[in-house]
């Protein structure tokens, strides 16, 4: 069981630190609030608290980089604190080269950049840079996030390759990153579901709240089911730290985000289609988060391949005697 006082304390301090529109400022505040200490002290709780705030508020302090770097540091000591990460994101067409990697904008002032050629953990290297300013923020589908796009590793002052032992901890680092993203996507989905449920109670048609119609109720119910199962999987993966569980959790978070977007927009109706409504901000963010560290379909394909090749022959996803390392949220929302 988790320490309630710790959760309350972290929730308060992290929420205050993230309350800045500028990601760079939020990041400085977050580090000053002891985020890295909390991460070292109780990773499951610190990650769940912070990434759920990021998901619910749409703020992003680049904390994903810290989660991954901390796992790599076990075999790659010089990685240290504060390295920014260039994530593989897009596969451009051969005849039309373009950006392949993204950096979280809160980390634009970083002096070191970890370049991940792909998600296999090979050829990782650190480049010394003077910030990531040379690249402009891309609008893309989520201009509010403002990812920094790169099409090749920057030519920095020096480049260092990962030590021999680093690939061995990459799998754990990737799993930890996927768990963090799952928490963030789930919190975003919960926020939309709460908004849609309130709206369904308030919006009247045919002389009654649309929440009285079973067709509307069932859409909202299905959304809660999808989010609750993704939530449970994120808790399971945070607790057992198994790569397979983390892949399942990230895939389920992607599914939950897609189900939530489809059903909630349908409940909001026309107003949800306008940018006056907040729906599009959450929707845009979920599309980007789903893509980071493998999207839902890629994860499912990969798990299917492992099964086909006999790699998951006795997998049971989570063991009964695994204690939840994060408190499980009850499946109800205050609509």
């Amino acid at each position, binding site marked *: 069981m988790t320490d309630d006082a710790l959760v309350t304390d972290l929730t308060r301090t992290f929420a205050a630190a993230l309350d800045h529109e500028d990601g760079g400022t939020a990041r400085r505040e977050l580090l000053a609030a002891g985020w890295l200490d909390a991460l070292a002290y109780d990773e499951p709780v610190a990650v769940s608290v912070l990434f759920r705030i990021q998901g619910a508020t749409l703020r992003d302090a680049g904390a994903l980089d810290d989660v991954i770097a901390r796992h790599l540091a076990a075999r790659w000591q010089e990685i240290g604190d504060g390295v920014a990460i260039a994530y593989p994101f897009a596969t451009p067409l051969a005849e039309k080269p373009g950006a392949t990697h993204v950096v979280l904008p809160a980390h634009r002032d970083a002096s070191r950049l970890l370049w991940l050629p792909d998600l296999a953990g090979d050829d990782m290297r650190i480049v010394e840079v003077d910030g990531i300013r040379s690249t402009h923020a891309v609008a893309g589908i989520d201009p509010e996030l403002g990812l920094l796009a790169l099409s090749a590793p920057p030519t920095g002052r020096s480049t260092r390759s990962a030590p021999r032992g680093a690939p061995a901890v990459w799998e754990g680092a990737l799993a930890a990153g996927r768990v963090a993203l799952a928490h963030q996507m789930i919190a975003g989905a919960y926020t939309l579901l709460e908004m849609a*449920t309130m709206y369904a*109670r308030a919006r009247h048609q*045919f*002389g*009654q*709240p649309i*929440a*009285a119609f*079973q067709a509307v*109720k*069932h859409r*909202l*119910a*299905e959304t*809660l*089911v999808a989010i*609750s*199962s*993704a939530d*449970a*999987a994120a*808790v*399971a993966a945070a607790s057992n730290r198994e790569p397979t*569980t983390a892949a*399942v*959790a990230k*895939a*389920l978070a992607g*599914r939950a985000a897609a189900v939530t977007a489809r059903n909630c927009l349908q409940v909001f109706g026309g107003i949800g289609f306008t940018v006056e409504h907040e729906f599009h901000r959450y929707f845009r963010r979920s599309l980007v988060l789903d893509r980071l560290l493998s999207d839902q*379909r890629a*994860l*499912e*394909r*990969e*798990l*299917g*391949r492992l*099964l*086909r090749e*006999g790699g*998951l*022959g*006795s*997998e*049971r*996803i*989570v*063991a*009964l*005697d*695994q*204690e*939840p390392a994060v408190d*499980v949220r*009850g*499946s*109800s*929302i*205050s*609509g």
Partner: protein
Amino acid sequence: LPAPAEYEGPDGLRRFRRDLAAWLDERAAALCVSAPGASLDDEVACTRENQRQLWDADWLRFGWPRSVGGFGGPPILRAAIAEEAAARRLFPGTIFAMTEVLAPTLVDAAPDLAIRHLAPYLRGEEGWCQGFSEPDAGSDLASLRCRAVDEGDHWVVTGQKIWTTLAQYAARIVLLARTGSPESRHRGITAMLVDMESPGVTVRPLHAMNEKDEFSETFFDGVRVPKSRLIGEVDKGWQVAMEMLRSERGGIFWMLSARLVSELQDLVAEADLEPADDERVGHAFVSLGALRARTWTSQHRLNTGTMSTPETSIDKILMASAEQELFDLVPLVLNGRFELDGTDTARAWRTEYMYSRAASIYGGSAEIQRNIVADQLLGLRSVATTGT
């Protein structure tokens, strides 16, 4: 033999599971594994034989209160036994799972009956069944009409139940009967434990499309039931039913999800999968992952008494959709062998496939579960409707 004190304190569950798994593996040759395509008779016999061995070795006493013949300890120990046995195909289908639906509520609501009848049930000496649904009371359970007339020291029960799982193998039935006025809905229902051998009880198995006559119609024609067979309080049977539904929709899915994961692994081993199948197989695996993770949290929350009955509807929805998605794969990846082959294996896949079609109907339909989620978890019950 395992002793209760060994599994107290932190890490007790892990040690319990480890020792249990070791015992099951060591005894593998003596335990009964149902062959693919086995008949329901064989599956029931096999399950009961394994229950007997597990009880006699004391494993099945864990997690049940000492007052009814158990060893005490947290109920999550029972989930560990069910999972490990199911994963080894020692408990096929839902035969053993029914103990988890019916018995915990009996222990709470009728301890005297539990003292007498629980041990023979868990040891596989006798079966029990659940008399809830009626021909005109399916999703609308509160409209049930099977009547129990008060005759002083006993009731006289007349009416019909349907979908009574394994009634033909049962010595006892947990019956919901109308003791209030016909219009009393959920306020006039009483739960009682009735002997199936009582004069006036008739069982007629229904031949189902999965080729296993698991469900029956059960008729009651002036059946005398002593008042000592009361479960809970008179006219308070709805609460008893809701407690049982919490188990039916929550507690048993940890075990059943382990079985489904094994089924997927069997299917993958048997089919000639191609890379083009990866996405679909992976999707089914992730859906099972949703069920596993959710039922894992549910086990821990049920164990600490922090899970409400409506929340178990989420588990039920996940179970039905994961089970159907898994068996949707079977015809796709067995490429004609599923429809055509006369082998026991093919017959077993057909039976399971057909059974999975009912997963969104039994135990409260998918629509009822979604109503519960919306009304009680999203708080939409109070939303006024003008009606049409």
